């Protein structure tokens, strides 16, 4: 009896041969399908591969043009390449592993537009975006914007406020305008009362001289009345003589009020000082936030492809446990040892070619002894270096990203908004970026240095409607002339999803210094103008009041002098004791009175 049923074995051998031949000729479509399906599963967006050729004998796979859509932006590609060649380790296939020993990818570009949507039709495409970078910087930016707006509003308020109600000089002048005429009126009334009283005494004396016997009864009373009038005249004259002294005191009070107002204006019309750090935040914050969002978004996407948690080797066994033997280190099922890359990129407003190498990429990077490394170097129009290390070999995922671009040409951009908005002209910038991610913790620094800076107001032709704001805007424009170099450092902390950052720049302090100086000058000028106006007005009013008061005093003294002569005559006519003499020096201006006042009658 034969051991083998050749009749059975031969047809099956023929079947196996057919299968082998089918695989041989159908391998390319099979690999192409596997690449596309695996890529789409990993990325969550369409992976399109125009052509693929393979050679099992040489262990080569030749890739035609391919592109991977961006899962978060379906009309853009995450990555695109013209062609590639992968050298496969066929022995590793026997060990159930796909190892790409060497390879080249040419014409690599990222973030390129697509003609058709790259979204997959499955529900998986709607999964949450966990790698698009930080979601919201608006509270941070809003605080900077608010600080600038607050400063502008405060300065505008200072310049526009009506301070006259709070000044003392006008109050003192008003008080004098009120008090001096009242005082003069009271004095006039007293002199008038004396005139009336003197007239009555004169009438009584005339009556007594016509009837002496009857007059004797009232002689004593008349004498007392005359003495009383004389006494009152002395008091009035003395009070009038004190007016110049009182005017001197009032003048001193006015001077004190003016000094007070001068100090008050100095205290009130001063600039709070625009904070340079806040100004940097306001001007550079939106631009930096925008670029930071892009950078961190890409870092997040790269991280999502390189799992930051240790991945266990797949057992691909639903039953039992796969045992790894001592001395046979678990190997990842996919391992790309080295890829030579060439491509082009757009940095700032410059397109440039670059070359690079990508080493040790794996589906289970924690099983590798070396971290994944990507080195890129610009060739041609722009010199730049990128070194990215994704280390999953230790317990914690550690990523190190460095970018050094000394001659980056940045396009013109608008910094800030509103009155303080500035336009930054295109210029060469040195950009240095260093990010370190340990597990979820982010630590990094971005340094931008731009020389020969040309800054101007965003829209100098448009002048704000409010004259004060327009004036401030002009001051900002003038302050920009002194800024020649822009030096900005952004320090990052927190996590990739919720980063915190600080901007340090010389733009804010330089601009703030200029603006503060100009604002201070503006406010001092405003204070000086107000003070001068106040002084002029107070002086004019004082002079008018003093002249008026002196005229009134002279008139009152003249009237009082006439009355005094009449009272003395009456005293002599009455034959009583000598009338108390009123000192002539008390009324020195009597002789200066006009002729009309040189009457003996006690006139009004």
């Amino acid at each position, binding site marked *: *009896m*034969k*051991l*083998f*049923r050749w*009749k*059975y*074995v031969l047809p*099956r051998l023929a079947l196996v041969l057919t299968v082998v031949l089918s695989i041989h000729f159908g391998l390319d479509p099979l690999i192409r399908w596997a690449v596309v399906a695996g890529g789409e599963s990993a990325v969550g967006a369409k992976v399109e591969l125009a052509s693929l050729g393979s050679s099992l004998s040489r262990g080569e796979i030749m890739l035609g043009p391919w592109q991977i859509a961006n899962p978060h932006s379906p009309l853009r590609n995450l990555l695109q390449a013209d062609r590639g060649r992968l050298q496969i380790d066929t*022995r590793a296939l*026997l*060990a*159930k*592993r796909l190892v790409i020993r060497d390879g080249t990818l040419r014409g690599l570009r990222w973030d390129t537009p697509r003609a058709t949507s790259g979204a997959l039709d499955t529900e998986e495409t709607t999964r949450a975006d966990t790698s698009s970078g930080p979601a919201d910087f608006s509270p941070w930016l809003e605080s900077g914007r608010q600080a600038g707006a607050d400063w502008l509003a405060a300065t505008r308020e200072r310049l526009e406020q009506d301070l006259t109600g709070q000044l003392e000089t006008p109050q003192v002048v008003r008080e004098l305008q009120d008090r001096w005429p009242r005082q003069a009126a009271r004095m006039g009334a007293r002199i008038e009362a004396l005139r009336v009283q003197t007239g009555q005494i004169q009438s009584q004396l005339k009556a007594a001289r016509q009837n002496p016997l009857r007059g004797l009864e009232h002689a004593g009373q008349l004498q007392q009345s005359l003495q009383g009038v004389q006494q009152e005249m002395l008091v009035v004259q003395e009070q009038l003589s004190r007016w110049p002294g009182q005017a001197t005191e009032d003048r001193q009070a006015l001077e004190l009020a003016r000094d007070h107002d001068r100090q008050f204006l100095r205290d009130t019309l001063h600039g709070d000082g625009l904070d340079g750090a806040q100004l940097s935040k306001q001007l550079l914050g939106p631009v930096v936030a925008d670029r930071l969002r892009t950078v961190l978004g890409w870092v997040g996407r790269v991280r999502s492809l390189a799992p930051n948690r240790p991945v266990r080797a797949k*057992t*691909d*066994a*639903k*039953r*039992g*446990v*796969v*045992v*790894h*033997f*001592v*001395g*046979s280190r678990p190997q990842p099922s996919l391992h790309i040892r080295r890829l030579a890359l060439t491509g082009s990129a757009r940095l700032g407003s410059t397109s440039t070619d670059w070359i690079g190498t990508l080493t040790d990429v794996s589906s289970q990077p924690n099983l590798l002894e070396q971290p994944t490394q990507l080195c890129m170097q610009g060739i041609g129009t722009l010199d730049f270096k990128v070194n990215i290390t994704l280390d999953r070999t230790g317990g914690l995922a550690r990523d190190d990203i460095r970018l050094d671009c000394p001659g980056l040409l940045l396009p013109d951009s608008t910094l800030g908004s509103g009155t303080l908005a500035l336009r930054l002209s295109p210029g060469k910038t040195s950009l240095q970026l260093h990010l370190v991610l340990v597990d979820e913790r982010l630590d990094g620094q971005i340094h931008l240095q731009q020389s020969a800076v040309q800054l101007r107001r965003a829209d100098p032709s448009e002048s704000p409607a409010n004259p004060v704001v327009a004036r401030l805007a002009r001051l900002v424009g003038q302050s920009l002339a002194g800024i020649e170099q822009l030096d900005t450092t952004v320090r990052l902390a927190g996590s990739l999803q919720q980063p915190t950052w600080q901007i340090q720049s010389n733009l804010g302090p330089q601009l703030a210094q200029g603006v503060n100086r100009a604002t201070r000058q503006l406010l001092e000028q405003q204070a000086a103008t107000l003070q001068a106006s106040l002084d002029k007005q107070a002086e004019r009013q004082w002079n008018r009041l003093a002249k008026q008061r002196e005229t009134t005093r002279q008139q009152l003294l003249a009237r009082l002098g006439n009355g005094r002569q009449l009272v003395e005559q009456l005293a002599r006519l009455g034959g009583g004791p000598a009338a108390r003499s009123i000192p002539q020096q008390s009324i020195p201006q009597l002789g200066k009175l006009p002729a009309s006042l040189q009457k003996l009658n006690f006139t009004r």
Partner: protein
Amino acid sequence: MVSILLRPVRQLALTLAANDSPRQVAWGFALGMLAGLVPKGNLLAIGLFVLLCALRVNKPAGLLALALFAVVGSWLDPLAHAIGALILTWGPARPLHAWIYAQPLGPWSGLNNTAVLGQLVIGLYLIYPVYCLTRLFASKIQPRAIAWLQRYRAVRWLTGLELGARLSAR
């Protein structure tokens, strides 16, 4: 077409009523048992199945055992895992396991899986007893079963078809 459709039924009947010797039936059943126990998806399971098909053994009995012991095997998984783990972690055998694993197609064999190795060991352990029991069973039951089955026209027709198929093949 009818022949193809009735082939499974015919083979079931032929498990006992065929002209194969009890020894062939027993080997078929034992190999089917071994192939059924071992978890699928590895080169070992494929090799055992190819062996079952390639050897001159009773294939219907093997396929029947394969289906039966595929179910039984899942029940035995905890035991198989324990046995497999014991063997794979046994110090003196580790170099051998590592050597097997390091050979081309070694990782495809599944021999570093506790359940695969455990089921293989259980199967190998049971193969001879199963062979003996099946042979005993077949030698005692087969003549009576043939006589009993031949009373039915359908069975005669089915065996006739098989005979016809064989004659036409010759």
